[in-house]
């Protein structure tokens, strides 16, 4: 087994009545890992905790062996894609993509060529001078991905990356998703409520129900594993078996 890049140990986070309850999880280098669960299961909270945005009430999140919150935010080098992409609205697509280079004081000429190169890869080189508000959902997502991946982060966190896309764009993005790991050699942790999508894209899948992680399986075992009643309900396994 390859090295662990993200290790979540007995994580407990309380927010009002909701508890992310005792979650433990290891993500390995270059692994595609999906966390599936219903809306409100705690998927986004788990992702935000993985990036070190929220403080755990108990347990810890280790990023390359160091507690993630001990690393200053600007030195973590983690790629993060929010569900609504969160492009900087006052910058063009090129400004958004090249932002990380600008923060590292890379000369402008170099920024331009690197932005062009990654924009070509994500097929957004034609919209580089446009502002995010004028881009389609698919273009916004690809710009956000290019921005997140330009510094080649070892870990990419994606929050419901395909929810807002139409079926055609979604399938086009599935193809691009698979090339991300090969081109950028990063581990990807993504959360989704679509288990078919998770099974199609991920190496391993974790199922989150009511704030607790009920198990982790390889994607081909998703419908075959011995799940508890809640997970069977969520996956619709009982109904499926009754029909069979």
């Amino acid at each position, binding site marked *: 087994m390859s090295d662990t890049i993200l290790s979540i140990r007995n994580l407990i986070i309380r927010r009002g009545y909701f508890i992310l309850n005792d979650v433990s999880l290891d993500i390995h280098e270059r692994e595609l890992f999906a966390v599936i669960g219903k809306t409100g299961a705690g998927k986004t909270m788990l992702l935000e905790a993985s*990036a070190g*945005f929220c403080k755990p009430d108990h347990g810890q999140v280790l990023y390359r062996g160091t507690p993630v919150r001990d690393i*200053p*935010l*600007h*030195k*973590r*080098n*983690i*790629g*993060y894609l*929010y569900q609504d992409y*969160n492009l*900087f*609205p*006052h910058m063009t697509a090129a400004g958004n993509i090249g*932002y*990380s280079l600008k*923060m*590292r004081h890379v000369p402008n000429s170099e920024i331009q060529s690197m932005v062009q190169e990654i924009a070509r890869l994500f097929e957004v080189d034609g919209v580089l001078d446009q*502002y*995010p*508000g*004028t881009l389609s959902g698919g273009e916004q997502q690809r710009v956000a991905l290019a*921005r*997140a991946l330009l*510094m080649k982060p070892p870990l990419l966190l994606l929050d419901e990356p395909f929810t807002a896309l139409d079926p055609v764009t979604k399938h086009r993005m599935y193809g691009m998703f698979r090339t991300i790991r090969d081109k950028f050699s990063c581990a990807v942790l993504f959360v989704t409520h679509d288990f078919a999508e998770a099974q199609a894209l991920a190496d391993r899948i974790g199922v989150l129900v009511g704030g607790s992680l009920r198990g982790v399986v390889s994607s081909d075992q998703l419908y075959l594993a011995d799940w508890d009643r809640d997970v069977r309900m969520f996956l619709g396994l009982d109904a499926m078996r009754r029909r069979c």
Partner: protein
Amino acid sequence: MRKHRHPDIFLSLCGILTILTVLFIGTNVIVMTFQGTRSFLSNVMRTETLFAIGLSVRTACVSTLLCFLLAVPTSFILERTSFPLRPVVETALELTMSLPNIVLGLSMLIIFASPFGKALKHAGFPVVFSQNGIVLAQLIVNLPFAIKLSTAAFRDVDVKLEHVAGLLGASPFRQFSTILLPLSRHTLISALILVWSRALGEFGATLMLVGVTRMKTETLPAGIYLDVSTNDLSGALSSAFMLLLISALSLGIANRLTKKNVRWSRHV
């Protein structure tokens, strides 16, 4: 049909309120404009009025600048960080907003007429009955207002954008300077203009702290007070018209700046 009933009532209320406001303010504006403009040029060219305009603009600029130098970092801390006793700090900072300006002026007079104020005077920074006092009075009166406006401006910006910027390598200061500040700049500039406009018209606290002395501590509002007390209604109306002009201009600029940048929008 019932669905449209409430909006109809609201629309009528809004219309009545607008008409009342226009009638109320309009009457004052018409009197000030006609009476004020009649002798406006001759009055405005008086040495006293020119002095008052100069002093008002100068002190308002300095106090507004100081106000925002203090308000922006304070608002950032209040809006973007968590610390113990934060509600207490917030309440304390906003407390002066609920006090009448004249009470604030009195409080300042008590502080700066004390041995502390005398020590300041000996150190070359007189406050009571001096122009420094005008700046200080405007600053104290407007600071909570500026903090409130700046905090609201920062609150409008999605904190997730700063998180993303941080993960992309931006230090906390760069997150502030490249994301938060540019995205809130329209609201901040309009707040700056409104605060400047309030500073220009400040009278209560200034009156208590520095008094009203011709050609010494005579701001535009103080000039109006002096003109009325010496029965010079035409001079008072000219100064009032001048204030009205400046306020209308600053309000116009503020409204224009609060409009979103159309380049960011899809509907260009």
